[in-house]
Each structure stands twice: as C-alpha cells, then as structure tokens.
C-alpha cells in the first residue's frame, strides 16, 4: 500500500503542477479546453491524495512498522481513536493531511460554485493546484535541502522494529483528535477565498460576484479557526496540567493572527456590500489572512522560534519561507496593479456612522494582530538588531494586548448602536442610554462587592454594556415584529433571528465574545497551593467567592490500562464541610506493546468544573515510593464559561452561515449595491 501511496503522491504533484498551469493559462488566454482541464485536475489530484491518505492509514492500522512514520507515531497497543489521529500527529503526515484537505476544499469549490461565477473557476483551480502542489513538493523534495531530512510519510526503515514508539502521551487526549484537524481546516479553507480573490484580480472581474462567492468560505474558515482555537485551549487546560489555557506560545499566536484578520474582513466586507467602499482593504485583508495562515505553518514547522508545539526542526522551514516570500510578493504585486480598478463607489458621509465605527473596529483587530505578531517576532528582532537575546513571555503580551482587547470590546458594543451613513445626536442618545447604564451599573456592583482588579472591573463593565446593546437590539426587533405582525414575543424573537441570520447571528457571536472576555478576567483571581498529603491528610483553599474547599487524600492506587501504567490518587473534595465529590489525578507511564516505557511519566489532572469555578488537582509524584503524595491544588474561577463562550461563538457563526434567508439573486443584488467597476455603466 505504501508503494501505491508514493505513486499517488507523485501523481498528485504532477496533477497539481498541470492544474496550476492549465487553470491560469486557460483563464488568461480564454482557452476553454485548458480551463476545463485545470478544473478537472483539481478533482484528479483530490482522488490521488485521498488514495495516498488511505494508504498511510492502512499502514498505521496494520502496524507496518517498517514505515518510518508508523514506527515513530504509533504502537501496537495505541487505541484506534489515536491511531487514526497519528495521520496528522507528525510533520510528514500533517503535510499530506493538509494537501488532501485543500484538494477536497478545492473540489468542493469547483462543484458548488454557482454558474454565474464559473468564469472565475479556472483561476481558482490554478491557485488551489499551485498551493497543493507546493505542499506535495515539500513531502517529495525536502530531502534535497540541508539538513537533508525527508518529509515523505511513506519512507521505509532499513529494518522492522517489533513495535513502534507510540504517540506522545499529551496527544492522547480527545481534544487532540479534534483540535488539530479543526485548526487545519481553518488554515486550509482560507486558501479558497484567497484563490477567489486572486481569480478576481487576474480576471479583472472585480465586481460583487467574487465577494458573494467567498462569503460562505470565509465564514467557514473563521468558524473552523474559532472552534480549533477553543478546542486547543480546552486541550491545553485538561491535558498539559499547568492550569491555564493560553500561554501566548508562538504557535498559539500563529493561529490567532488569521482569526483576527478574518474577523476584521467579516466586518469590513459589510461596508463593501452596503456602500461599495473598502474594496482595496478587503482584498488586502483576504490576501493577508492567507499569508498569515502560511506564516503560522512556517512557525510551526521551521523551529525558528522555540515553541512547545513545534515539529522537529527540518528543512521544510526553508520551503515555507521561500513560498511565503514568493506568494506574498506575487499576490501584492498583482494587487497593486489592479488598485485603479478598486476605487470606492461612495464616500463616507459622517464620522458618526456605522461605517466609521467598523473602520475603527478593523483598525483595532488588525492592530491587535500586529501586536501579537510583533511580540512573537520581537525576540528575533532584538537578537538581530541589538544582539540581545530576550524572552517575550505572557506578561508582555498582557501588557500590550489587554488594553487593546478592552477597546475592541467597547467597539463591539458601540458599532451596532450607530446608524449607517449618519447618526443624529437624538438617535445616539436613544441608542446608548440603556447599554451605557447597564455597563456602568455592572461595574459599580462589582466595585461595591470588593473587586479591585482594574482590568477585570473594566472587562465586566464593558461586557455588560455589550450585552445591553445586544439585548436592546433583539428587544427592539422583536417588539417591531410584534407591533407589525401581532406575533407573540418569543415567536417574534425566533423569526427575527431566522429572517436576518447574518445580523442577529452576529449579535450571538458578540454575546459569546463577551462571555469569553469575562471568563478571561476570572483568571485574575486564580488561587493555588502545593501540598504533600498522606492518606487522610487534608489541605484547605479559599476561593474568591468565599468558599473554603478542603481536599483530603484518600490514598493512591496503581493499575494497568491499555497502553499505560497508572498511579491514581483519590482526593475527596468538601466545600464548607460538605462533601461535593471525588477527584482522581493520575501519573501515567505509557508503555509499548511489549511493556517497555515509551515516554517520561506524564500527569493527568483531575478537574471538577463548577459554574463559578474549576477545582484543578495535579498529582506531582510521591515521596520515597510511599502513598505520601505531592499535589498541586488550583481554583480557577469562571473557566467553564470559556468553553460556554466558545460554544456560543460557534453557534452564532453557524447561524450566520446557515443557508437560506433570501435567494442568491437577492443576496447578489444586495452585495451589488454600489459595487461596480469604475467607469462601468
């Protein structure tokens, strides 16, 4: 099967090169046969890559340890769930996964794009094929570049080990099965809007059609990225054992960058659709988002910056850097050439308008992306420019980004309250009165309750302001329907949401963002202690809400599980003297099928998630081989709300994306408002 896989890889590469050439040349020259061939090449490449994935999964499931990748990432006793996920656990497999998913997305774009956008498809096929061919070329040719390490997942070993090394214990977590694919789907699907943007630039069809064609794709990428980032936070929290969910690691930051610019695009594209403005900006954002997704891949795979997420250092970093530079220069050169065709149709009428507030929202989103990128790269800049190695850790990111994040939260509430085109003073008073009152009232309540953390208080006040805005919008809309159609309030709310999914789904996303911000603020009140406990001994910890939690060790037990030897502690938890549950933190020694230890013993925290706070217990180890154990106990306020906020963001995104809400013709005509080429009649 691996021979078949290798053949398919080569076939896919050749098809990718052909698809890129045929698609773009066919589109530019108007030769329909070439254009059609380019489109078909995407389907053929997709088929070849799917067969290659099947071949690798076959080797993984059949424990073909002669295949180097299989021996490196699986073992005979690895659960099936994780054997599947080994496909993208390593550098080589993830490259194959990336190329395959891109070809699947490309095929879907070819198949699902409406007829009136067909003229763009040869170019889209060309761009998708070129990007996929690049990823395949990394697998096939990485060994040519120093340090001459291969990136081909089908490489064979000169011998066959009895068993494989197994999967890293930290990757043996359900979050890890879903988190990387979601992030990859987010990163990869950005290529489709990028391909349409390049297609529009190449074909000079810079009307509203390309914008309509990419809206769903952009939302899909944003949704995948959002879910992927939240799942990554969840995985870090439940698996890594440090009691947090975001460490400002370069690879984490790399996933945030395209998310921020895509969020900016999803806002600014509304201005283009409604007012025919910001065409240049929107195209620039799409190209930038895609380049940032490639930049994230470069960071993960190059080893240029120290990160806990990085793959082993290899030559693929050079490939990605070269690709990034070439693609960036080519894209922005083309963009610069087409700038005269991207003049705005209308001008801003007033500084006090929703358009202006969206522009400032874009400025902040892109500014935060810049701040994150700047912080991520600053250690390199410092070393290059002044020759001093520095560490740019979480405190520095908090220093820079918390004020910016709070300003963004404020704009999340301000934007929807300002009318399009021009807002009058009476209108502003009427719109702002309730939300501002709610925000100030919430801040006063927490101040009176004794909260003295400045940023947390501001976050709660602004969060209440945004929730006030959202509630007011829903309330007014539902009341209007009630007056107009006589619908009962609940029905009116439901129909309001169903009839204008984009607007009200967006408000649900805003609600999720508020919940996330308030939950992040909760971490300012984290409480923790270390303790050594014999069976029967206890330690107490006071939560920020005034409860006293008592943790009593009931002893340790040891047992064997499928691919690990477990040492588990039983810890009884009491709140103000009343038993509320049992926690079982573990130390795990993973072993291969022959019982040989594969990795260092790892910790498995045990978490009791309550509405107000999480109780998080880590078993550090034991003293002198006895049941006297070292624990770390942490109380993390509001963590549950991080996952809840993430769910609401995803739900809001799904509502915005959900099909319906008007015919394509209506949407096109809406999008086409004032969006015509300069000089076009």
């Amino acid at each position, binding site marked *: 099967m691996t021979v078949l896989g290798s053949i398919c890889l080569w076939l896919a590469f050749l098809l990718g090169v052909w698809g890129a050439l045929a698609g773009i040349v066919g589109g530019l020259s108007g030769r329909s046969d070439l254009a059609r061939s380019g489109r078909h090449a995407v389907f053929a490449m997709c088929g070849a890559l799917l067969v290659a994935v099947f071949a690798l999964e076959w080797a993984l499931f059949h424990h073909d340890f002669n295949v180097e990748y299989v021996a490196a990432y699986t073992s005979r006793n690895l659960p099936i769930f994780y054997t599947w996920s080994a496909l993208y656990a390593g550098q080589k497999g993830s490259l194959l996964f990336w190329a395959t998913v891109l070809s699947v997305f490309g095929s879907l774009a070819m198949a699902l794009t409406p007829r009136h956008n067909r003229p763009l498809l040869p170019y889209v096929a060309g761009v998708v094929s070129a990007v996929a061919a690049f990823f395949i070329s990394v697998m096939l040719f990485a060994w040519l570049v120093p340090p001459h390490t291969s990136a081909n997942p089908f490489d064979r070993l000169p011998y066959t080990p009895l068993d494989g090394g197994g999967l890293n214990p930290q990757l043996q977590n359900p979050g890890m099965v879903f988190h990387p694919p979601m992030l990859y789907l987010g990163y990869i699907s950005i290529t489709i809007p990028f391909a349409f943007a390049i297609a529009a630039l190449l074909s000079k069809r810079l009307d509203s059609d390309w914008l309509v064609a990419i809206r769903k794709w952009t939302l899909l990428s944003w949704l995948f990225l959002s879910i992927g980032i939240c799942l990554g936070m969840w995985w870090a929290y439940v698996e890594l054992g440090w009691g947090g969910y975001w460490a400002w690691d370069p690879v984490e930051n790399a996933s945030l960058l395209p998310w921020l610019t895509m969020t900016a695009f999803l806002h600014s594209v509304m201005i283009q659709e409604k007012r025919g403005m910001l065409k240049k900006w929107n195209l620039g954002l799409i190209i930038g988002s895609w380049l940032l997704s490639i930049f994230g891949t470069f960071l993960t795979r190059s080893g240029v910056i120290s990160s806990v997420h990085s793959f082993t250092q290899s030559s693929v970093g050079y490939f990605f850097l070269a690709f990034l530079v070439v693609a960036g220069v080519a894209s922005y050169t083309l963009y610069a050439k087409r700038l005269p065709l991207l003049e705005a149709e209308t001008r801003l009428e*007033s500084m006090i308008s929703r358009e202006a507030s969206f522009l400032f929202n874009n400025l902040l989103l892109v500014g935060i992306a810049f701040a994150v990128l*700047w912080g991520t790269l600053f250690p390199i800049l410092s070393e290059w420019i002044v020759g001093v190695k520095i560490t740019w850790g979480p405190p520095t990111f908090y220093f820079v980004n918390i004020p910016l994040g709070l300003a963004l939260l404020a704009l999340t509430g301000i934007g929807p309250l300002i009318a399009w085109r021009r807002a009058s003073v009476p209108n502003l008073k009427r719109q702002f009165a309730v939300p501002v009152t709610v925000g100030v009232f919430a801040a006063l309540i927490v101040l009176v309750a004794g909260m003295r953390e400045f940023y947390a208080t501001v976050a709660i006040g602004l969060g209440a302001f945004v929730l006030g805005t959202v509630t007011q919008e829903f309330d007014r809309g539902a009341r209007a329907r009630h007056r107009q159609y006589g619908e009962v309030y609940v029905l009116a709310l439901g129909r309001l949401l169903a009839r204008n999914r984009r607007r009200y789904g967006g408000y649900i996303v805003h609600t999720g963002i508020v919940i996330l911000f308030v939950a992040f603020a909760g971490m300012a009140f984290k409480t923790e202690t270390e303790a050594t406990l014999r069976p029967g001994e206890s330690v107490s910890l006071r939560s920020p809400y005034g409860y006293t939690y008592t943790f009593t060790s009931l002893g340790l037990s040891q047992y064997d599980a499928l691919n690990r030897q477990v*040492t588990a502690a039983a810890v009884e938890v009491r709140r103000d003297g009343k038993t509320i549950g049992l926690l079982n933190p573990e130390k795990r020694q993973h072993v291969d099928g022959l019982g040989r230890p594969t990795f260092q013993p790892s910790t498995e925290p045990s978490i009791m998630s309550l509405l107000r706070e999480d109780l998080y217990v880590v078993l550090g180890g034991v003293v002198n081989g006895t049941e006297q154990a070292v624990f770390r106990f942490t109380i993390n306020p509001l963590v549950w709300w991080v996952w809840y906020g993430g769910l609401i963001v995803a739900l809001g995104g799904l509502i915005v994306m959900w099909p319906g809400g008007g015919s394509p013709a209506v949407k096109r005509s809406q999008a086409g408002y004032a969006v015509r080429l300069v000089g076009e009649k």
Partner: protein
Amino acid sequence: MRAARRHGGTAVGSRREFLASVVVGLVTVLPPYRPAAQDSLPGAGPSGRLWDPDRAGRPLPPVTAADNDAALQAIEKQIHCTCGCNLDVYTCRTTDFTCAVSPAMHARVVALAREGKTGQQILDQFVRENGVAILMAPPKHGFNLAGYFVPSLVIVVAGAILTLVLRRWARAVPAPVAPRPSAVAASPEELERLRRELDRLSV
C-alpha cells in the same frame, strides 16, 4: 526387611533431611516475606508503600513552606525556565513535575532569599548569571521599549490618520440638497421618527 526398614529408617532420615533442605532451599530461593501491601485507610497512620514507585515518576521531596511562599512564587513567575518549556519557573515546576531544571532554579531562588536578598536583587542575580533572556518580561528600557510600545503607538498613529482621512472624506461629500417643498410636509418630529425607523430597519 529390617535392613529394608533400616534402609527405610535411613530413608526416613533422608526424607527429613530432604524436607529440611527443601525448606532451607525455598527460604533462600524465595524472596523474603513481605506483609501484603494494603491501601491505607484515611487517618490509619503511616502511608503504605506503592507497588511500583517507578511508575509514579521521579521521587519528590515533601512540599516545604518556601514552595508555597507567595513572595517567592511571584519572583519565580518572572523567571524563564531554561528547560525549553517556554514557561516560568513556578509554572514549570508545578506542571508535570518531571522537569529537573525548574526545581533547581527554585532552590536557587530560595537560597538567595535566605541570604536576605530582595525580589529585585534575586532577579538581578539571575540576569547576571544567565543574561536578560532569563526574565519572562524584559526590562522596559532601551530597544525593549519598542517591543512594549510600538504596537500601541502604531495603532494610535493609524487611528489619528484614519480620523483625518475620514473627516476629509466626510467633508468631501456634498452637503445635502435642500429638500424641495413637497405636497405633504413633515414636521421635525415626524422626520426624526422616520429616521429612527430607518435606523432600526438598517442591517
């Protein structure tokens, strides 16, 4: 028969010797007796020994008061662990407890504190020994100022430019033409109401 009995007696003697030797042999061959390990019950005295302590990872010393000292923790949260984890010393040493570097750095912090050094002096000592990269956040001077303030500065400058450009755009838009007298005149209240309704309906 007697001989046989005697032989048998000899045989009996040999059997005793044989049994004794078997017992001695078993005693020497078999591992020494250990009382069956039982899980300790809460409050039942000294803790039992684990069946296989190696499975629980590196043996750890008991937690001391210094480990939970908030002032020392605050210092350790400013020091970068050099094991490659990208975490601070406190977080690293309390995360999976496998790192051998962060406990050593923690011991150094405790030792310096016992010498009577203040938090800042301890940090300075670490910088002298390891370079400025040992700090989780570099000091706010020199080139580092660029790291701290360039993003905010860029946003403020861009915001100012954006404001100027938007103002110019807004001024460039021709002033609204005076409304022609219409057959149905609207009062200012009605016009404001109309504007409100249009605002509400706007997406």
